[in-house]
């Protein structure tokens, strides 16, 4: 085992998309292989059903899938590769647990990183604030991220995606076929079949043969042919023939619209006629104003409305569009046009419009998430869920656990906890981090605990609560246990109720970027300021491995530590952070002190 640790090999990065799975190695510019996602993963979430599969079924699916990924596609030894799973924000828990089970038990990987996928494209922009729009197959997901903190409270999905375009395309083709009934040639018999039936010696036979056969079979109508199209072909038609129409406001010069009907050749002598209007018409479902479903621009508006007022202007300055559907020709200009109209009709967001800016990473939208994962995998000290943790029974990290274990607000604990007299209890966020006697040990504990706190979303909470968590430093454990339990339980609601704006304000403040005048500034401000200071000095404990986009800020302020995937305003709450100060929780604790 030691061998595997000493020879550091790049991680394997897997992005399980609804339509296509991308897999490859960290630090590379493109996924090594892109293949269709097995059906079960696709069918997980439909309009009505959230999860259809049991844990056992997931295990079967993933065992097959990951074996293929490791041995067939990537040809890597799983025992020496950490795995980064670009995790859907709402993926079902049994699925995640099945992933851990298969990877740890069957393939014996050393560690897994579950990273919320929507944060990853931000790495490519070099900014820690922005909006990520993932226009995928099943739906469009929109997530704002402010100073590395994903605002899950404003997470919005628009129920339009590639699948809906496919459906419209099928409808349109069928409708056309019914209006213009015609017969098409049957596909020519396969070469093999022809050869079988005609002996080599009599070439003439092959010419006579088709006639009687054609007479026997009923003619093939266009309707039949269109009806029998499979999803893969349909998707190919979409990619090859369809585009998103747009018309810039200059009266006809800049218009992406063609009046040309084209034929999509199916086999050698069959073709599906596609009307010019169909070619752009089917994509209109993405911007559909009928109100049947949320369209993309409405989704963005809704998301912005859920965001705190004071960060909206920052957010819109960095919009990243990813997902396969976004690679349709004309997608981005059309989205900009629709967005402009939507902003103009909304009086409250009107002023934001002029600040809107799209980032254009070099990489194609379909692989943006994966490439972000590849960057994440190249960094040091990122949070991980290791095999040892799995064996100890630490639960699979899951940001959703954060809301699940939410507890009612309780009065703040009294300042003097039994053990630390004169030092505020950890729950209040100001407990000095350095209680352990040996610096070496502490640092190691920090590193050790970073996995739990770090990288992925709310994984922190469940970890901190399970006694065997990742606290390898016994001091940490003791301290935690010594705390009156309310101190911990009150953090959750506190941080929930004062979501990011505060924290962001604090950070923004420290950087002089501003952006935090909401959140009841006057009273919060000094605290926020102080908070940052504490951060700057000790810090801490802020656990993690600052992955990412945030990395930049972290360098400066120190607190920012864990960047990426924290649920809104949730401080990462590892043991370590409990002591030092999860930003929000700490603030809350202090504010309570002040008021009393």
């Amino acid at each position, binding site marked *: 085992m030691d061998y595997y640790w000493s020879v550091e090999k790049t991680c394997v990065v897997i992005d399980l998309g609804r339509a296509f799975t991308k897999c490859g190695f960290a630090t590379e510019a493109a996924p090594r292989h892109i293949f269709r996602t097995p059906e079960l993963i696709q069918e997980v979430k439909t309009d009505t059903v959230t999860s259809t599969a049991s844990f*056992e079924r997931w295990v079967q699916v993933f065992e097959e899938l990951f074996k293929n990924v490791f041995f067939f596609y990537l040809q890597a030894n799983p025992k020496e590769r950490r795995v980064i799973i670009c995790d859907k924000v709402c993926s079902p828990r049994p699925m995640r647990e099945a992933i851990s089970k298969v990877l740890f038990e069957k393939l014996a990987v050393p560690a897994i990183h579950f990273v919320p996928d929507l944060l990853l494209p931000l790495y490519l922009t070099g900014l820690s604030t922005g909006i990520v729009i993932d226009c995928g197959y099943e739906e469009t997901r929109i997530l704002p991220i402010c100073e590395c903190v994903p605002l899950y409270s404003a997470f919005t999905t628009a129920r339009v995606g590639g699948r809906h375009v496919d459906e419209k395309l099928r409808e349109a083709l069928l409708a056309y076929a019914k209006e213009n009934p015609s017969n098409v040639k049957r596909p020519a018999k396969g070469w093999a079949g022809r050869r079988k039936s005609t002996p080599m010696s009599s070439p003439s036979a092959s010419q006579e043969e088709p006639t009687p056969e054609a007479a026997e079979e009923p003619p093939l109508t266009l309707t039949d042919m269109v009806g029998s199209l499979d999803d893969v072909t349909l998707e190919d038609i979409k990619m090859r023939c369809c585009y998103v129409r747009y018309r810039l406001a200059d009266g006809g010069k800049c218009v992406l619209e063609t009046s040309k009907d084209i034929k999509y*050749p199916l086999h050698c002598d069959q073709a599906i006629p596609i009307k010019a209007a169909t070619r752009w018409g089917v994509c209109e479902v993405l911007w559909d104003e009928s109100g049947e479903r949320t369209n993309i621009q409405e989704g963005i508006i809704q998301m912005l409305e859920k965001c705190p007022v004071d960060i909206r202007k920052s957010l819109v300055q960095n919009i990243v569009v990813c997902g396969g559907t976004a690679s349709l020709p004309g997608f981005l200009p059309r989205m900009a046009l629709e967005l402009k109209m939507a902003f103009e009709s909304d009086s409250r967001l009107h002023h934001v419009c002029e600040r809107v800016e799209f980032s254009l990473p070099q990489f194609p939208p379909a692989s943006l998430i994966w490439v972000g994962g590849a960057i994440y995998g190249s960094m040091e000290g990122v949070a991980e869920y290791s095999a040892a943790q799995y064996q100890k029974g630490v639960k699979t990290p899951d940001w959703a656990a954060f809301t699940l274990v939410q507890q009612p607000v309780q009065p703040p604990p009294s300042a003097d906890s039994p053990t630390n007299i004169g030092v505020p209890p950890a729950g209040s966020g*100001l407990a000095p981090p350095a209680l352990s006697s040996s610096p070496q040990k502490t640092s190691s504990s920090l590193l050790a605990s970073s996995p739990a706190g770090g990288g992925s979303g709310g994984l922190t909470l469940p970890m901190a609560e399970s006694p065997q968590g990742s606290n390898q430093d016994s001091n940490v454990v003791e301290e935690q246990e010594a705390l009156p339990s309310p101190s911990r339980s009150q953090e959750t609601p506190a941080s929930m109720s004062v979501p990011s704006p505060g924290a962001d304000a604090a950070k923004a403040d420290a950087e002089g970027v501003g952006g935090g005048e909401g959140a009841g500034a006057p009273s919060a401000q000094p605290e926020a300021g102080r908070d940052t200071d504490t951060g700057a000095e*000790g810090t801490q404990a802020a656990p993690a491995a600052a992955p990412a986009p945030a*990395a930049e800020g972290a360098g400066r302020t120190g607190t920012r530590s864990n960047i990426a995937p924290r649920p809104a305003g949730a401080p990462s709450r590892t043991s370590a952070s409990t002591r030092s100060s999860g930003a929000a929780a700490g603030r809350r604790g202090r504010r309570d002190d002040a008021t009393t």
Partner: protein
Amino acid sequence: MIYSDGYAEGEPRVEFRTDVDDGGGQGAGTGTGRLFPLEELYFCDACSLVCSRYGLTEEIDSYYCPHCLENMPSSEAMLYLNRCSKCFECPICFNTLTITAAHDGKCFFSCQFCRWSSGEIQLEAEKPDMLVAAAFQKERDSPHRTEMNKLVETFRKASQEITRERELQARMRRRSITLFLPATSGEGSKRGSKSGGGAHPWVVEDLENMLKDKKTKLKTMSIRTTTKKGVRIESISLKDLIAPSDEKARSIAEQLKSLDETPTDTIASLDQRTRCINEEAHTLSGLIPSRKPLLTKRSRRCRQCTRYVVKPQINPCSTPPFQKQNIAWLYVPRVLLVHPNPNEIGVGRVMSVSFAMYNPVESNTTARFAADAYNRNISEGEEEEDRDNNSSSSNPFGYTMDVLTEPFETVIGPHNELQDVHEGLIEEDSAAVPTDDNPEIITERKGNKIMVCLRVKPHDDSAGKEATFGIPVELSFKDRTMKEHNTHIHLVFTLGIISGASE
């Protein structure tokens, strides 16, 4: 990677059930196990276990190119991104390209299947090896690659810095306690020191000034100024994006031109695009050839005893191709089902099922058939009373037929490679095989083959379902090294669809 892709419902077949989860954890998560045809199973001769690919761990032994059959060490394979260093694939039809020389002596890649030629993308060279080098260079110099290297470098440095800083801070912790204390007691804060003076306490005016500052800043602030150093990212504002200009008109006109072409002639398909995703090619002319992906030779070990079950030779051209290949086909009797008449399968009808068994090992194989192990009813007589409490424990796999034949034991003769040649010439060695067969069960016997006939009856309530029954069989035999094996297999027969009541 070629596995049977399932059967049609009711297709007559014999399968082997493995990985049954009996609490031992072997097939954990699979409940009633999985069904495989014999061809897909392995036999671990160390622990005498028939196992499926799920009961084995895999390891990659060597890499080779499927086209030039050259063996590549793993370090080299990693360097070449698990692709062949010499063979290239057609970007259109994914067949292997050949290098062709034109009349003027220029070499280029050409596809023998779809007639694509690399001249179309200006990939030509004087000599074949220069051509390969040029293609390589093209891959290496891709702007995405350089961009990615820059990004990775930037973020890796940042993360290293943070890690270092965190370690440092951890060492400083003891000192930091003292720094915290004034902050908590409200005596002052470092904020003051930042804004100019020493450790002043907070003053309301400070605060108001700060807020004012912020308000003005907010109006002009651009988060782009905070872009990480070393990351150069293009962006376009919404206004610019939708502002008409001549340049845009031109690019749109170009796009329209490609949209007007016949799709399959010029527009890349989804598969073609995903192969070279970074090119973002909309048209075929944007595609570039990629190197041929390598294949691997893998060894498999038993999960229980961690000994090799399959071990290939390193070289792809060596014969025999395997050092060790314990596939179940060479150990476990093969079962051949005589397809029953589908009309005979009906509720309440007793029918007979015949199947042949071939012994592949060169010793006698003793087979004990626990024929009635999974019967729903204890016996025919008690059928009426027993129907209600047919416990699922006696039929955990959901079989729809009962086996009326009693449990029996038989011996199958040894396999002899010369058997067919010598047939009729030599007296069959009948001494080794007992001949006191029950002619109703073992209907025929010859050399290493026996013909078995069973009587089965569908359950009364199973009309319309698949007719299935299962029989656990205990086997004992000796392998080539005369090692004695005792193993069990679980045969699952599927006969067809049970038709409705026929009485």
